[in-house]
């Protein structure tokens, strides 16, 4: 036997198995191209020069790791499916006189050809697509990128190395399959009689209990930062419950339906239920995996989309005004320089100021209620308070006014070391808000003290000037103005924040996240679709005989088609329905998580999840139609 023969044999094998191999190869190619794109972004030194570009580089680094991990899992899984189907063919070679070492050589050629093709085409597609993808990324983050997505040598090398390793792994798996199998086993392939699954009442109960438990836990989480254990508990419960749901609950339900004789012994239910029950044992694991992947995809889509479209909400939550400046009172000169520049630029960009707030005060951390923990508070003089609120309140030396962000905290006296202060009034509202600790962050107290008050000496040592205002005018002008002032403030060393600057910053961060989220969703989705496709197809071959017999016994083509359709419909959509249920239940938790990033708009999160779910269902439906067609061709080929 010479080399050429092996190569020829390998090529004919690939051609013969084209319908089986093609979806696998396409997935390989797309995974390779995505991996290249993400790697080239993560290794792009110019990206770091963009503001917040470092964040994108980190995100892409994470992405490339994730892609590699997912590829290992999925390509191996899919490969094992194909291998199972091909065992028979390889067994035949064995019978024809090829030794295992010859089969090994054929397989080596096959792997070499497919690996080379997928890596090469993946890289070509990746390199070509990279320009478009860079353009899309640039659009999404709202920033011009200083590069055009030209070919990146290091990324090419990294991609080749990664996928050569992955394909080598699956090749080794295949060799092992050949090694351990004896020819008779090979010939039999997947067709070994399986016993009907036993009812699993206990496990089913446990599954439902865990699901309820996980859902309840997720509702009980109040503050995701503090209740991370509870959150983890919820995730684990739902994860295990999902497996049990498919492994035990499904069989339990089918058994119950079977026991209901009036239901079971109906033409349209009989073959369906008995078929599903029989299949469920092999199906359960695959279906739970598909369900969990779908849930993950939906959650990733929902969070990244709502972060991106919630940027305005985030900005409004984090910054109270369009422009906020604060500087130590001591830096008076610098401040007046900045103010001059502001006045000049306001006119230049034809903008107007409104809601102007100018005040002095200081941020301090002291233990005010003698519980051993520091309270964060903002201290302000009475004169300023009266000025800001246009009132004329008066306080004696040891009296203060307090506004507390945490309405549950209430006490009539404060202690500060040995000093005792009495609270004259708990204010209902306060004219300023400069706590940027976030929605879950430390709640602040705002304290107003008279000039000669017991706290006043703190302010004489350390007080800041705050200047905040909103702008009216065109968005573009606001943005240009903010940029100009931020440069000036940076030069002077004054702290400056603007909503439009923050907005641009978030566009880059969340745009980058959304970009990666989309790539991950596509990959996860493709791999989900691929595994369900292969599962159905390989089942199709097993079901062939079953439907042949049914036809002989007197089941019409139409009834067979109906049964097939309903069977695939259930197999396909049960994971989707559970995944959508998980998503719905997880939404409150997702919203709580969003608040960590200052996003608290229900509408945005609900909208994003609805859009994600719709897109997901549509593509899923398309995969369903394709799978059903292929399955039907195998199981019940129409005449002629």
């Amino acid at each position, binding site marked *: 036997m010479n080399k050429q023969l092996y190569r020829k044999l390998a090529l004919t094998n690939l051609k013969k198995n084209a319908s089986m191999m093609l979806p696998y190869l396409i997935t390989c190619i797309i995974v390779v191209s995505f991996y290249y794109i993400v790697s080239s972004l993560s290794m792009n030194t110019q990206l770091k020069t963009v503001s917040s570009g470092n964040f994108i580089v980190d995100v892409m680094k994470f992405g490339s790791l994730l892609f590699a991990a997912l590829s290992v899992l999925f390509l191996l899984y899919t490969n094992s499916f194909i291998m199972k189907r091909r065992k028979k063919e390889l067994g035949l070679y064995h019978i024809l006189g090829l030794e295992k070492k010859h089969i090994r050589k054929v397989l080596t050629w096959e792997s070499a050809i497919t690996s080379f093709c997928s890596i090469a085409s993946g890289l070509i597609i990746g390199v070509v697509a990279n320009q478009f993808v860079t353009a899309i990324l640039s659009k999404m983050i709202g920033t011009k990128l200083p590069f055009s997505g030209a070919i990146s040598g290091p990324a090419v090398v990294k991609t080749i190395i990664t996928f050569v390793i992955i394909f080598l792994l699956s090749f080794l798996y295949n060799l092992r399959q050949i090694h351990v199998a004896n020819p008779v086993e090979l010939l039999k392939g997947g067709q070994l*009689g*399986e*016993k*009907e699954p036993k009812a699993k009442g206990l496990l089913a109960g446990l599954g439902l209990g865990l699901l309820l438990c996980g859902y309840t836990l997720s509702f009980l989480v109040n503050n995701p930062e503090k209740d991370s254990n509870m959150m983890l508990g919820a995730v684990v419960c739902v994860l295990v419950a999902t497996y049990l749901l498919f492994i035990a609950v499904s069989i339990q339900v089918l058994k119950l339906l079977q026991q209901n*004789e*009036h239901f079971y*012994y*109906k*033409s349209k239910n*009989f073959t369906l239920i*008995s*078929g599903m*029950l*029989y299949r469920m044992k092999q199906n359960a694991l695959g279906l739970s995996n598909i369900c969990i992947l779908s849930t993950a995809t939906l959650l990733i889509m929902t969070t990244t989309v709502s972060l991106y479209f919630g940027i305005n909400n985030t900005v409004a939550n984090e910054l109270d005004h369009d422009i906020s400046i604060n500087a130590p009172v001591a830096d008076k000169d610098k401040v007046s320089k900045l103010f001059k520049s502001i006045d000049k630029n306001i006119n230049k960009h034809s903008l107007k100021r409104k809601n102007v707030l100018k005040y002095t005060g200081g941020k301090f951390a002291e233990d005010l209620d003698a519980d051993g923990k520091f309270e964060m508070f903002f201290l302000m003089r009475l004169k300023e308070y009266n000025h800001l609120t246009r009132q004329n309140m008066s306080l004696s030396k040891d009296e203060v006014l307090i506004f507390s962000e945490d309405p549950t905290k209430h006490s009539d006296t404060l202690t500060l070391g040995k000093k005792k202060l009495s609270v004259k009034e708990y204010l209902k509202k306060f004219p300023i808000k400069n706590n940027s600790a976030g929605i879950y962050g430390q709640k602040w107290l705002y304290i107003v003290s008279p000039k000669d008050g017991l706290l006043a000496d703190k302010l004489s040592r350390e007080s800041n000037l705050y200047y905040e205002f909103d702008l009216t005018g065109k968005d573009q002008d606001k943005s240009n103005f903010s940029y100009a002032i931020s440069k000036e403030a940076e030069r002077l060393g004054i702290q400056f924040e603007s909503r439009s600057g923050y907005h641009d910053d978030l566009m880059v961060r969340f745009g980058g996240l959304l970009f990666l989220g989309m790539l991950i969703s596509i990959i996860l989705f493709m791999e989900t679709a691929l595994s369900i496709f292969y599962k159905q197809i390989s089942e199709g071959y097993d079901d062939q005989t*079953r439907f042949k*017999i*049914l*036809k*002989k*016994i*007197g*089941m*019409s*083509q*139409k*009834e067979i088609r109906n049964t097939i359709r309903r069977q695939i419909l259930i197999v396909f959509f049960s994971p989707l329905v559970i995944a959508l249920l998980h998503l719905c239940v997880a939404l409150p938790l997702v919203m709580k998580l969003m608040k960590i990033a200052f996003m608290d708009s229900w509408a945005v999160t609900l909208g994003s999840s609805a859009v994600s779910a719709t897109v997901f269902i549509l593509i899923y439906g398309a995969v369903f139609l394709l799978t059903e067609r292929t399955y039907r061709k195998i199981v019940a080929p129409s005449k002629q």
Partner: protein
Amino acid sequence: MTILEVKSLKKIYKTRFRGNQVEALSNISFSVDQGEFIAIMGESGSGKTTLLNIMASLDSPSEGSVLLNGKSYADIREDELSSFRRDNLGFVFQDFNLLDNLNIKDNILLPLVLSNCSRKVMKERLFPLVRKLGIENLMRKFPYEVSGGQKQRTAVARSLITSPSLILADEPTGALDSHSSEELLKLFSELNREGQTIMMVTHSVQAAGCANRVLFIKDGKIICEVSKHSPNEDITQKIFSVLSAISTARETS
């Protein structure tokens, strides 16, 4: 009374290779009377299965027609054909064709379930039948848990449960050991004595000997037939001589 009539059947298979044609059946005509037990014999590849499949309406002839109880298969719509098949014909196959995922009871009930019969009818028909076939203790077992003979009796029960006009059996003893074969043939004879019409393809002379008429088929044609003149006549000798005549004819040609 004639229940099945086969009129000048012809079946041509077109193979994919270079449009080659195989004439599996050429001009076959015969009729089956109520209560007959007919065996079909012939070498492998002579067209027996093709004939049976056409009689079963699983396949359609290239020319000619089949009439069951005076009704031509060609006049039955495609979607009605399967329910017609279910109600009028029973099948027994060499490889049993039981469904792995159904227990014995559900396998037997399958044709009734497909016809959406009531539970009452199912129960009324099932118990006498399985008692008669001696498989009443296997109801909850699955096909892979019972012997070949038991599987075949299950298949026979399934074919009988709709009380069909005709039972078609394609080498029903082909996969059975001699003891189980004998049992099955005894069962067929007994069913036939009770009035069941049976048509059976077989290789075994002993099996054919149970029938009251044997058709010999060669290259898609019926070349001769042997019948019993009285129910207890032993025709195995006649069958042997016909078979040897056919094989010597082939050797000389």
